[in-house]
């Protein structure tokens, strides 16, 4: 099972803060494709060039591998400070 999180504007646009995925996905790209099945809005939000991904709290990319039990978070560019 993969724990998927969304933050900031992305969370509001998708109206989802957290979901669990049981599908066997090997990397971030495959996870995005699987989530894209939920509709055009999901495809657009996740494919945006500015959308960031963190795997187990560390920034990654489309190529980052995902293992069962991982926490994967999608979010827009950060704006703290």
């Amino acid at each position, binding site marked *: 099972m993969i724990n998927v*999180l969304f*933050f*900031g*504007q992305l969370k*509001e646009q998708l109206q989802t803060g957290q979901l669990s995925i049981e599908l066997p996905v090997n990397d971030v790209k495959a996870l995005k494709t699987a989530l894209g099945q939920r509709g055009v809005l999901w495809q657009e939000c996740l494919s945006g060039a*500015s959308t960031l991904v*963190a795997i187990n*709290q*560390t*920034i990654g990319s489309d190529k980052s591998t995902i293992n069962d039990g991982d*926490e994967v*978070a999608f*979010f*827009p*560019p*950060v*704006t*703290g*400070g």
Partner: protein
Amino acid sequence: MQDIIDVQTDDFDQNALYNALRQDSASQGAIVTFSGLVRDFNQGHAIGGLFLEHYPAMTMHSLTNIVGQARQRWTLGKIIVIHRVGHLAQGDQIVFVGVTSAHRKDAFDGAQFIMDHLKTEAPFWKKETTECGPRWVEANPNDEKARAKWGNDD
């Protein structure tokens, strides 16, 4: 001389943080602090206040990593990083970064490096209350440029 890294909803006391830096500074001599406040205007909008969301499981990990990178690059004494989350009003303190060093330049560079990386890597998101309703703050391209100036450091 333990570093202090914290994420909190409560306000912080700049004076107490400065005193904590000073207390451990017998061999340091230089203290640089940065404080970020909620401004009254941002990107053309009058700001009533803001809400700061973060990614709790990642935030401390990210800040600790940034502080560790700064320590590798400069000879620093004590480091304090405090970032607030939740609802903040105009004029409120958002973030504090304090650094001590034996060398003035190291203290300035260390503090600026931490802020430049916090602004582009630490998982915080600001939502402002404006006269047109709430809006998520967009990332400032200058922040990415400021971070890039320090080169690669992972």
